[in-house]
């Protein structure tokens, strides 16, 4: 990938020392900024809102939400799918791009992985909360009980349990293993003894010996290999929650690929939404360069086109199937009570990304930021359209209904941002947001290639 005319992935004039200093300083040297405090306070407030909403939910039951018959799934499932989708970029960047030797990934993979973890944490909440009786969630797990019963393996929800938990575990390990050498660096560079101790414990006694490095590389590569199929599997399984059902608008074989594409699409959108402010705030423009943003933008364009293709295929198939229910579903999405949502998603997910054909836009952080935000909104709306419009008018007109989210639906959604952001702020404050080791290595490689 080292085509000379390309903008570099690291601004010139850095050696590994300065790289390390610059990154670790963000955590160790920088004083607790007003900006960070304000941001964290805001995020924490939202988190408390979530806690409040959950508390009331457990006291009263899911009836506080707007769900009903026929629309028995609402915000909870929409949020779940959306967050899980966002959780895809991280592993994609670290695992797949690693295997493809995309050196530009190095400066953003740590950050993206963290984002993945936090997104999955948010996502994990909703399947539990949306249960009518959350306290018996463990019945979905296979364990030897006194009833002589097991989960019902034909149900995609059981597959979900495994897909999501596996994904969460592997991403966590992958992220942590990647962190170990950096934690050691933090340990060595942090002054106060307690801090040294904490980082030291987390670093698991890393000494940077050749043996350590050999094992580290091996483990990291293996985990990357493990994580790669998961990127594809998780959202495929999630999509099966819908595809397996007979509901018009859900019952479609295109869902797995189209969901995965959508997931990566939204994932990168979220990466940009977060990276652009962060690199500005912490002055990391030299490491997270325009080239990174541009590459992310390119991936968004590609996956965005796949998603658009998904939409078109869906519409074509409902016409081609000549199934009266399916045709009605499609028309209902476009012109029914929820038409605005559908047009909004078309605007955000199909129209807007086309701007990314232009380099001038791909290389303009401000515009990219807005664009990424729109895509986030669009992808959430897409899930809303899939879940709600498909359910509210299915087979028997007599059973058609309408769904209005209540304030509790909104509180839970907004609250989940709180959880996500709080974790993110803590991460920025306590851990190196960019992989020091990989950056250092990158700088060395560059130097060598220049010397030759």
């Amino acid at each position, binding site marked *: 990938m080292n085509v000379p005319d390309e903008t570099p992935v690291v601004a010139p004039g850095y050696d590994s020392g300065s790289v390390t200093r610059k990154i670790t300083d963000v955590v160790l040297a920088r004083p607790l900024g007003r900006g960070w405090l304000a941001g964290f306070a805001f995020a924490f407030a939202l988190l408390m809102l979530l806690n409040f909403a959950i508390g009331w939910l457990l006291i009263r039951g899911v009836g506080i939400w707007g769900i009903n018959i026929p629309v028995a799934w609402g915000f909870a499932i929409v949020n779940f799918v959306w967050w899980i989708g966002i959780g895809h970029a991280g592993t994609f960047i670290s695992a797949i791009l690693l295997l493809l030797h995309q050196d530009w990934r190095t400066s953003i993979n740590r950050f993206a992985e963290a984002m993945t973890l936090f997104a999955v944490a948010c996502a994990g909440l909703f399947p539990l909360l949306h249960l009518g009786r959350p306290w018996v969630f463990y019945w979905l797990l296979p364990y030897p009980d*006194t*009833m002589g019963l097991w989960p019902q393996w034909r149900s995609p929800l059981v597959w979900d349990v495994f897909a999501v938990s596996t994904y969460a575990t592997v991403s966590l390990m992958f992220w942590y293993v990647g962190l170990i050498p950096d934690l050691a660096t933090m340990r060595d560079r942090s002054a106060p003894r307690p801090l040294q101790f904490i980082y*030291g414990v987390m670093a698991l*006694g890393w000494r940077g010996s050749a043996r350590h490095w050999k094992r580290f590389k091996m483990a990291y590569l293996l985990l990357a290999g493990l994580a790669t199929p998961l990127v594809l599997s998780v959202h495929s399984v999630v999509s099966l929650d819908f595809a397996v059902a007979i509901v018009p608008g859900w019952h479609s074989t295109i869902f797995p690929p189209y969901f995965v594409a959508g997931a990566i699409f939204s994932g990168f959108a979220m990466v940009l939404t977060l990276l652009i402010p962060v690199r500005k705030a912490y002055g990391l423009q030299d490491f997270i360069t325009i080239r990174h943003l541009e590459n992310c933008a390119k991936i968004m364009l590609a996956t965005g086109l796949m998603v658009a293709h998904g939409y078109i295929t869906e519409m074509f198939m409902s016409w081609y199937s000549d199934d009266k229910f399916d045709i009605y579903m499609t028309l209902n999405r476009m012109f029914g009570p929820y038409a605005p949502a559908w047009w909004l998603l078309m605007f955000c997910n199909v129209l807007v990304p086309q701007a990314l054909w232009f380099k001038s836009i791909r290389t303009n952080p401000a515009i990219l930021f807005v664009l990424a935000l729109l895509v986030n909104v669009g992808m959430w709306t897409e899930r809303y359209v899939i879940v709600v419009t498909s359910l509210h008018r299915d087979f028997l007109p007599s059973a058609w209904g309408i769904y209005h989210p209540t304030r509790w639906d909104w509180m839970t959604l907004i609250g989940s941002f709180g959880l996500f952001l709080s974790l993110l702020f803590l991460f920025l404050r306590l851990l190196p947001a960019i992989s020091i080791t990989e950056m250092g290595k990158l700088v060395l490689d560059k130097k060598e290639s220049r010397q030759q």
Partner: protein
Amino acid sequence: MPQLFKRRANAIANAAIMGGVLIFLGACGVVYALGRSDYWTRKEEPLAQPVPFSHEHHVAGLGIDCRYCHTSVEKSSFAGMPPTDTCMTCHSQVWKDAPVLQPVRDSMQNGRPLRWTRVYDLPDYVYFDHSIHVNKGIGCASCHGRVDQMPMTWQEQPLYMRWCLDCHWQPEMHLRPLEEVFNLSYASPKNQFLLGTTLAEQNHVSHDGLTDCYTCHR
């Protein structure tokens, strides 16, 4: 820069990791065991009653048949608890002034029923029917044990769903001749399976439907 950790830190770290795993597994084990413990199911736990009624004395001692008190056991889902006047049929003559029987006499006088503590308490969403079991050759003792040897009555079986299913899966292993149903001391023969199969034939005990959810839950 001084060493942050002593040599034994490695040992501690390993121990911590191992320990974490073990503690987790241990916790699971405890929950698993507790759920099956007699403490949890109240198995073989004699319960205090308003009157220390002894099945041992009345059944073994006096040879009173189950149906004398549990009148509806062959007709109804509920086996029936003896109304006070059933007790008084005898105890108006024998033990007329025994202090332990004071509650019974009170109940008779002021018409307020005795409040026994349930020994076999199935959850409300389980619909067990005594009559069909008794009429198809399941003996009282199969679930209630040797009440004729219980001075105070206790629950003989754990009453897990699994325990119910064991029999519903293979009723042959528990069927007995209809005339033996109320015989508490009946012991199933060596060839129980053969006997059971023939009895199942005779009394139309079919497998299909026995393990349907709706057989017990509605």
